[in-house]
């Protein structure tokens, strides 16, 4: 499926839209990490909690659960919220 990468993580992918596969949000993130080593830990901590400023949208709807099921033609948009100075 198509995955949109936020600009702070472009140093890993080199482009905004990338391909990844998996039947859940978590599985897609695992696949992203295989393709772009290190990218998952910047978004998900070692307790499998989504980091504070990371948001996931599936087909435009925000999801909070890494077990959220995905279909091959879904679109995953990863957003990094900004705050602070």
């Amino acid at each position: 499926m198509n995955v949109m990468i936020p600009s702070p993580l472009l140093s890993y992918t080199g482009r905004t839209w990338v391909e990844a596969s998996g039947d859940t949000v978590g599985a897609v993130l695992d696949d992203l990490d295989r393709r772009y080593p290190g990218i998952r830990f910047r978004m998900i901590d070692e307790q499998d909690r989504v980091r504070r400023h990371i948001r996931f949208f599936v087909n435009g709807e925000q999801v909070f659960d890494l077990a959220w099921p995905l279909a091959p033609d879904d679109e995953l948009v990863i957003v990094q919220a900004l705050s602070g100075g």
Partner: protein
Amino acid sequence: MAAGKGERSAGAGARRRAGRGGRGAPGRGVSLLVATRKGAWLFHGDVARRAWRVDGPHFHGHIVNHLVLDPRDGRTLLAAAKTGHLGPTVFRSADRGRTWTEAARPPAFAKAADGTGRAVDHTFWLTPGHASQPGVWYAGTSPQGLFRSDDGGVTWSPFSPVNEDPRYREWMGTVQDGTPDGPKLHSIIVDPRDPAHLYFAMSGGGVHESTDGGRTFAPLVKGLAVVEGFDPANVTFHDPHCVRLAPANPDRLYQQNHCGIYRIDRPSDEWVRIGAAMPKRVGDIGFPMVVHPRDADTAWVFPMDGSTVWPRTSPGGKPAAYVTRNAGRSWRRLDAGLPREQAWWTVKRQAMTADAGDPVGLYFGTTSGELWASRDEGARWRCIARHLPEIYAVEAVAAQ
């Protein structure tokens, strides 16, 4: 990605030859590794330590808490980094910063089955392992955790039981008990005579020692004061800011604590408050602690205002370093060249260091983004860079 004359020269017999990546060797020039809130910079000095060439920013926009050179190979650099919004990582360079790669497995706590486990917010402190253990590094994190790498910083694992030990977890307190940007494990020290003899400190949570290579640690807090009204017998309340071993006498450690300046001479297990001899109007509160590379009686501090609401600025807006030449019996103010008034910055715990020159060069970075240097052990200071982001750490190494 991307000297004038010193006040005293150290005895030649005590002089150590700096290694390939030592703290800065006479005749070769010095490089400064500067970690800031918005990236890292390298400043390369000429042999006289007068002219400086800037290289950076590296990791522009990243919060870099520590940038450290491996003294065993003189070329491997590790940077503890994160951004305000992404998880923490460690970057590694095998060519002194020309190219960087990310650690394959940055420091991270073990996953807890019940979902209550801790997560590393940032790696705060990096210490190369013993000279006999190439590739070994130690890292301290926020919240407090101790980690080790055996492969030069590529992969990291929790090290020793302290991270999960119930007693240590109690002494670490909660995130609310720590410093404003998170409680930290820092001041990881490897005894140069024995790789199994280790120290670390926690803000908060006290100073700790291992003599068995990290399998067990025990508190080393006797003699240290805590904030009035708290019980010094409770390790939780101890807040060491910076602990440094004296290279010329590894049985001696100095400490800048939340509650004063201390020295300990092992095998004694009791710290002695040596800050009592500081001027009362300045006090003995601060963050950094620097020890002379060849004279264990000489150490420097950079006091800050720890009164009332803890402004954490220079006392009275008049910054100064202080030096002791007699192991803390007396202190002398070193402010020549520094602003005389209205300078409300201070120096954080990793942001002051010494090179191995003779006389010793001293360097510090400020919370206002200035980098200052002295070629004569603090007798006179000169600002060598302005307008950097807030400086978190400064390390001096021998130029390549």
